[in-house]
């Protein structure tokens, strides 16, 4: 694809697919039709130039192609055409003087993308299937790209996507925005899936590189789309702020040789100021709604870190208070773990270790960051022998090569 077409594809593919799923009532049919329309565009646009409303052109062309195909496959076609009352008079997007009206013709609804988000993150789907569908249908990634991002064979990822689509189809899942009563739960699923994509990109769970920028970038893009679609949802804004503030630290997270740098040791002059400013604005915007939620509180914690000119100057008391608030919203042992680390910064490693010990025994036994944090606090408390044991356990549990190298270095420094 040419650069121009590539750009149109990134921007418009998911919007077109989202609309076509509603018009055609079938995910596969919609995907095929949009792909076909882009193939036609790739042939035509280098000669004719990109039309003024490329999204409308693609959507209309895809719709026309789908209708042609349904007519050819008559039994299935009759049912679809009847069920969805598609206009069977086709419209040629190349010979329409008012291209903007094409959107009216195919009835593009901004909410289509939102419908698609709720469909992909339906709680009846497993988390890995939700993530795969979102990347495929909303981020427009090829199955092979998604498979590489998650380090699974392409056939495995293809099967995961096929199964997920089939489950939605067989279960007659409606293409709709959830009602007010069910919205909080369903929105939480959408947010969790986007954040899962972000964290997978931020610290790859396996492989040689610490981060996979593509996934993080897609997650941020999806987060922006969600905020555009639901501008009044404080948790959606909180999620975007959290991702932007985490992204702001990306340039400082690695040494030139690719090794990992802890937050405390990062060169803060390398943090991305523009992202910090935007993140702060979003945190303030969502806090104004006075409907606190887990993503907003996590974003506020990231904002406190971003505010500190040095690690020592961090307002740890504020961070502990925010972790307390987060724990009251989401009483999860990982939250208690992070709080313990903040306690150690404010009151010393002994207090931090006491807070760690208060976490329900065994709940974090297979969680690598728990052992890494405990090892660090033990080392700072002068309990070298126990620290070595905790590092061993952390090293045993990590699946990321860069993280492992960092832990091995920390252990060797004891």
């Amino acid at each position, binding site marked *: 694809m040419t650069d121009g077409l590539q750009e149109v594809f990134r921007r418009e593919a998911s919007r077109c697919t989202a609309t076509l799923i509603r018009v055609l009532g079938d995910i596969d049919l919609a995907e095929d039709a949009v792909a076909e329309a882009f193939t036609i565009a790739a042939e035509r646009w280098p000669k004719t130039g990109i039309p003024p409303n490329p999204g409308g052109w693609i959507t209309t062309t895809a719709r026309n192609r789908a209708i042609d195909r349904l007519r050819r496959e008559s039994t299935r076609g009759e049912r679809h055409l009847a069920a969805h009352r598609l206009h069977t008079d086709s419209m040629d997007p190349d010979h329409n003087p008012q291209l903007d009206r094409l959107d009216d013709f195919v009835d593009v609804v901004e909410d289509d993308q939102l419908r698609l988000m709720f469909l992909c993150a*339906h709680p*009846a789907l497993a988390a890995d299937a939700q993530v795969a569908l979102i990347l495929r249908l909303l981020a427009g990634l090829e199955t092979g790209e998604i498979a590489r991002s998650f380090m699974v064979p392409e056939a495995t990822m293809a099967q995961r996507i096929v199964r997920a689509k089939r489950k939605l189809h067989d*279960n*007659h*899942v*409606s293409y709709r925005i*959830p009602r007010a009563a*069910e919205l909080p739960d369903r929105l939480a699923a959408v947010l969790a899936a986007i954040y899962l994509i972000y964290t997978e990109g931020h610290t790859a769970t396996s492989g040689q590189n610490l981060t996979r920028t593509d996934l993080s970038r897609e997650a941020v893009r999806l987060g922006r789309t969600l905020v555009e679609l639901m501008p009044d949802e404080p948790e959606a804004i909180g999620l975007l702020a959290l991702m932007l503030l985490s992204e702001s630290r990306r340039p400082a997270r690695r040494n030139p040789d690719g090794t990992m740098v802890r937050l405390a040791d990062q060169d803060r002059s390398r943090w991305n100021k523009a992202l910090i400013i935007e993140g702060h604005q979003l945190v303030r915007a969502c806090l104004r709604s006075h409907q606190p939620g887990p993503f907003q509180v996590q974003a506020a914690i990231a904002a406190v870190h971003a505010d500190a000119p040095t690690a020592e100057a961090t307002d740890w008391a504020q961070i502990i208070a925010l972790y307390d608030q987060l724990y009251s919203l989401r009483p999860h042992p990982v939250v208690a773990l992070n709080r313990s680390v903040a306690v150690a910064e404010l009151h010393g490693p002994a207090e931090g270790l006491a807070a760690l010990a208060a976490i329900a025994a065994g709940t974090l036994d297979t969680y690598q960051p728990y052992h890494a944090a405990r090892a660090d606090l033990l080392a700072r408390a002068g309990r070298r022998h126990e620290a070595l044991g905790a590092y061993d356990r952390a090293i045993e549990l990590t699946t990321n090569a860069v993280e492992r190298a960092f832990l091995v270095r920390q252990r060797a420094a004891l």
Partner: protein
Amino acid sequence: MPQYLISVWHDDTFEVDFSTPDAQRLAAQVDAFNNNLQQAGAWVFAAGLHPASSATVVRSSGGEVSMTDGPYAETKEQMGGFWIIEAADLDGALEWAAKAAAACEGPVEVRPAQG
């Protein structure tokens, strides 16, 4: 309208003694849920089942019929009862399923019927 199977699952040793207050509470809850389903027009069919140990497996192969004692799936969890309901879509079925799980105080499984 799409139809869904809502099945109730529990341990294969589970047995209801209807003389106990617990069982009577469950029965009352399930009765109320059944009435709800019928009033809403979502009811198709439902039944509670005798324990899995009462099951017989029948096989037919080349005109030969064989029978064996016991449930087909030799798993710890067995189906204890089920509803067939009608709902507009999965979300509608899941709403009924949530009420079913509350009524029988245990997990239920939702599966779409073909057709």
